[in-house]
Every structure is written in C-alpha cells, then in structure tokens.
C-alpha cells in the first residue's frame, strides 16, 4: 500500500509549528504501522485491540495536554487535535478509547479532583497502567442528562450509590469509572473502582458501529463509595458538560481523520478502477464527489485549526465546539457515503476502510451530544432562546 501523506489542499501545514508537525507525523506513522494493519480483524470480531494500550502509552497519547508532573506531555490543544485526527484515520473506536481516557477521565480528575486523587490516578492513567471510563448517559436519559436517576446517599465515611449507566465506552475494561450521580439533587462526580461491592459492568453486545471499542452498562447496587472517592470540585451538571466539551473538541478533529481515510481510499480506487474502458475518475460525477469530499475536508481542517488556536488562547466557547462537532461529524458521514458509492460493491467489503468508518461515524455523530442537540446549543446562543430547556 502507498504511504499515507495526508490531505492538505490549502497548505494548512504552513500554519502549524515544527513540533505540531512532528507530533502529527509520529502519530501518523504509528497509526499506519500499528493500527491500520490490524483494525479490520478487531472490528470484524467486535474486539478492542488491547495490545495497543501499552504502545499508545509509550508514545504518550493519554492526557497529552496535562502537566508533565503527572507524566503527561503538556502539549497545546492543536497538537492534541492533530493526534485525535491521526488516530481516527485509523479507527474511531481506538480514537474513542483515547478520548475517554484523556478528556473524560484524566481531565475531570485533573480539574475537579483532590491533590491525592490527581497524584494517584493521573500518572497511572497516563502510563496506561489503569483504564478509565465516564458514566453519564442512562438508559432513560441520553440527550437530557439532567434528568438522571442514579443517586448517591451520604452514609458514614462515604456514600452509597444506586442506579445504572448505559452506553459507556471502556466500561467493562475500566479500572476506574468517573460516575455522575445526584447527591441531594446536585449532579456530583464519583470515582467508582473496579471490584467495589455491588458494582458490575457488563459489555453491551450487538453493535454494528464502533465495533473495535468496548461499550458497557454500569450497574450500581448499593455500592459503598469511600469519602476520598468523591470528586470534591464538582458542583452540578456543568462539570460533566465541561468534560464533554473537551471530548467534543477532540471529536471535531478526529472525524477529519475518517474523512481523509475515506477520501484517500476513494481517490485511489477511482484512479485505478476501469469501467467503459476508462478509470472511473474520468467521469464527471465521480470527480464531483471527490471534489465535494476535498472541499469539506479543507473547510473542516481550517475550522479545527482556528478552534484549536482559540482553545489555546482562552477565547473558545462551548458553542464554537458544538458548531465544529456538528458540522464535521455530519460532513464526515456524507464523505463516507460518497466514498462508499465510488467503491461500488467493493465499498461494502472490509478489505477497504470505508464501510467501517461509515458505520463508526453513526456513533460519533450520536455521542457527546447528537447532531440535533448541537444544533439547539448553537440555536440558543444565536437567538437567545433555548429550544430544549
């Protein structure tokens, strides 16, 4: 196979710093050598490639924006975004693993945890010696997490937790779950550890999307949570939403990786597939599809870069992230569908990455706020009227 050299029609490369480029290239090489050759098999078998955890940790991919004192690389947000983009060119499931570990587990421990919690958990999570998950969604509360029914009750030396979470990435394989539950009516974060009495995390089966990622239920049946496992700086749903904002930022970048993988596959295929005596790339309708793909990739790349620079200079607002997440996920799906069309029947085979990305993107479009919810977040910002609260 030809070496992947990226898609960069507008020399966006020239807007990146030397180290941003080096970081991207290092992760790009890693993805080409370690993820792409194995991922179809894991996706087909519905398994997460566990052997990648240590390799990704050695590369330093977990919690990349957090300080070096916790064994993290302390990169800027553009570098973090580029890493997500490269990982998702491999697979959305693998990118999800890293997103959850970094943005939904390490970030809340860093931002809302006690010094002891940070000192204990962050280095272990950074080195991949512990795995985390994030439990917000419940069977009956998805887009509307404020209605959650999982509840914590104060008891001596701690809390008892009751309820259930659903759709939790990494749940079954996690050593620690950042769980959001109502304590006296206020959404509060808890660190629930594997093996605590009454806590189980069965894997959800039958997914036709994000198959190389573990998705689980978390069930809490009178689980005793010691006082030291409460995230002390959480004081409502807004803290959970702050985590989502980090992860959504990563998704906005990540899906550009899927777009590039699909475009690359479609372009190469179109140039080599002969019908009516010519490459199908010579037909105007095929060219139009390829041009649409390239256009949307370029727009998303520019959107992301500015998003990242704003995050780095502190001017980013949650609705900016919503706009990028919403747009990029939507366009990524559109690109995957067009790529599938260009590949004809071959497009449905897992010999090519397109169908896997197409299926994965259905999850990516849904989690961390559906397309519709992000529409309403931006709608609320520009009109001053909330359509959902």
């Amino acid at each position, binding site marked *: 196979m030809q070496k992947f050299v990226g898609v960069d029609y507008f020399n966006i490369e020239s807007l990146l710093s030397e180290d941003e480029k080096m970081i991207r290239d290092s992760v790009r*090489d890693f993805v080409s050598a370690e993820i792409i050759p194995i991922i179809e098999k894991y996706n087909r078998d519905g398994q997460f490639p566990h052997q990648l955890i240590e390799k990704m940790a050695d590369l330093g991919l977990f919690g*990349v924006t957090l300080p070096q004192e916790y064994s993290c690389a302390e990169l800027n947000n553009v570098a973090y975004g580029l890493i997500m983009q490269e990982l998702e060119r491999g697979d959305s499931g693998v990118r999800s693993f890293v997103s959850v570990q970094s943005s939904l587990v390490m970030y809340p421990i860093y931002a809302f945890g006690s010094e002891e919690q940070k000192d204990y958990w962050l280095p272990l999570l950074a080195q991949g010696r512990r795995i985390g998950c994030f439990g917000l969604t419940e069977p009956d509360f998805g887009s509307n997490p404020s209605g959650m029914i999982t509840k914590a009750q104060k008891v001596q030396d701690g809390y008892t937790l009751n309820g259930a979470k659903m759709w939790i990435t990494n749940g079954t394989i996690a050593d620690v779950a950042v769980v959001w539950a109502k304590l006296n009516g206020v959404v509060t974060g808890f660190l629930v550890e594997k093996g605590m009495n009454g806590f189980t995390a069965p894997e959800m089966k039958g997914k036709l999307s994000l198959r190389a990622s573990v998705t689980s239920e978390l069930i809490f049946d009178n689980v005793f949570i010691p006082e030291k496992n409460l995230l002390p700086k959480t004081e409502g749903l807004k803290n959970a939403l702050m985590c989502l904002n980090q992860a959504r930022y990563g998704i906005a970048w990540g899906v550009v990786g899927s777009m590039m993988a699909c475009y690359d596959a479609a372009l190469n295929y179109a140039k080599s597939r002969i019908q009516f005596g010519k490459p199908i790339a010579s037909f105007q309708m095929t060219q139009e599809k390829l041009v649409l793909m390239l256009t949307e990739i370029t727009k998303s790349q520019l959107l992301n870069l500015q998003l990242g620079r704003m995050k780095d200079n502190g001017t980013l607002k949650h609705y900016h992230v919503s706009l990028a997440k919403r747009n990029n996920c939507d366009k990524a799906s559109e690109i995957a569908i067009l790529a599938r069309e260009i590949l004809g029947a071959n497009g449905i085979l897992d010999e090519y990455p397109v169908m896997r990305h197409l299926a994965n993107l259905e999850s990516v479009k849904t989690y961390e706020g559906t397309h519709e919810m992000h529409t309403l977040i931006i709608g609320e910002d520009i009109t001053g009227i909330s359509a959902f609260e």
Partner: protein
Amino acid sequence: MKIAVCVSHVPDTATKIKINSEGKSIDPIGVTFVVNPYDEYAIEEALKTKEKFGGEVFAISVGGEANKETIRKALAMGADNGILLKDNNERDSFAVAKALAEEIKLIGCELVFMGKQSVDYDNSITGQLTAEMLGYSCITTVVDLEIDNQKVIAEREIEGGREVVESELPVVITAQKGLNEPRYASLKGIMAAKKKVIEEKPAFSVENVSEIIKMYSPPAKNPGRILGTDSSAVPELVRLLREEAKVI
C-alpha cells in the same frame, strides 16, 4: 561511552523525483524529506546501546539547514546532542565521510552507527570511508549486535545467508533492516527535543573526489495490460509470457 550516530536527510521514497534542467541534481520543490530509513535502525541501536552501558549519543548530519529536521527527529527519539556540519553544496560520499570523521575524532566517539546506505544516492560507502579515515574497524550491513567490554560481535547479512564477525572498539557499524525495531518519537521526546540546541558548525572543508556528470530518470514503463479477470485469461497470458515477454 560516547556514541555517534550519523544521519542523512533524504527524499521520501514515496515522493516523485524531478530532475533539474541542467541534469545534475534533483529539484527539491515539493519533495518531502525524511530521516534516511536505514539511519533509523542506527539511531535505535545507538539509543539501545546507551541505555545498556550509559553514555551520550551524538546525532551528526552533514548538509544544509534542512538537515536540522532529521537531527531533531533523532533528538526526539532520544539522542542527547545534535550537530549540524553545515555545507550547502553537494558533497560526495568521500567529502561527507571526511566531515563526519573529523567531528567524530573531535568528540572522541568510539562507537559509530550509520545506516548501511542512504536511499538517495545509494552509494553504500560512507560508513566504510569514515571508518578508514578514523582508523576504526568497520562492520557493515549488521542485523544483530552484541557489545561486551571492548569486544563487538556482529551478525551481518551476506548474499544468501548470514555471517558472524568479531571485532573491537572503536568501530563503525552500518545498520541493515532487521537490526531492531526503531522506536517512535514519543510526544514527551518531541517536547524535550525542542529544548535541546543543535550545534551548528561549518563542515570540514575538503574537495569532492567525484563529480556528477549526468542524472536522468529511468525510461517510462509501458502501462500494464489486463487480459481478463478469471481463469479463461490464463492460456493467453501464458502465450504472451512465452512469445512476447519471452520470460518462460
């Protein structure tokens, strides 16, 4: 132990090469340059050796400003020091080796790693020349290496097999694919490399001993022909291989 690893900055083998109109050099516009792939094995072996015995790794490159990118990559992988021996003019292998040898002598490295060849000019000679100029032993095309005190035992790839040779420090080792699995530059390594300074000095001045007279691309290949996609095409394929290509 002071360890040198000599790294060259070469066009990515995946990029299309265009030759300048004067026909003696390549047009670098639009060409992506990378660390010479064989040098990555050399870097990895230098780092492994340092991790085992302690010491310092010096990544040295001869060439222009752009070579810093390759030195930076070696630093990101874990080399301690980077040195650019600057010369913007094309050097032949002899002149490159001379510059390297002078610098290695100055630093006092007793172990030198290089790639077995650079994938740009493919001369496969810089390691041997450098060793000769330094008066060091040289073991080329190494696929396995063991160092024990002053003793060096290396397995080399030879036509159709392997041979094991023994030598002593100081030595120049040229790395072949298979010697090791080069590590990825980790994110922390990349950030740490940013803080390391690349020392820059003029390359030892010496005349080239060879001159490029002409450079040209191989003749374009004729496009392939598809005779069919199932077994019915086999007889025709056999006929053409026999009568047209004359290979069977």
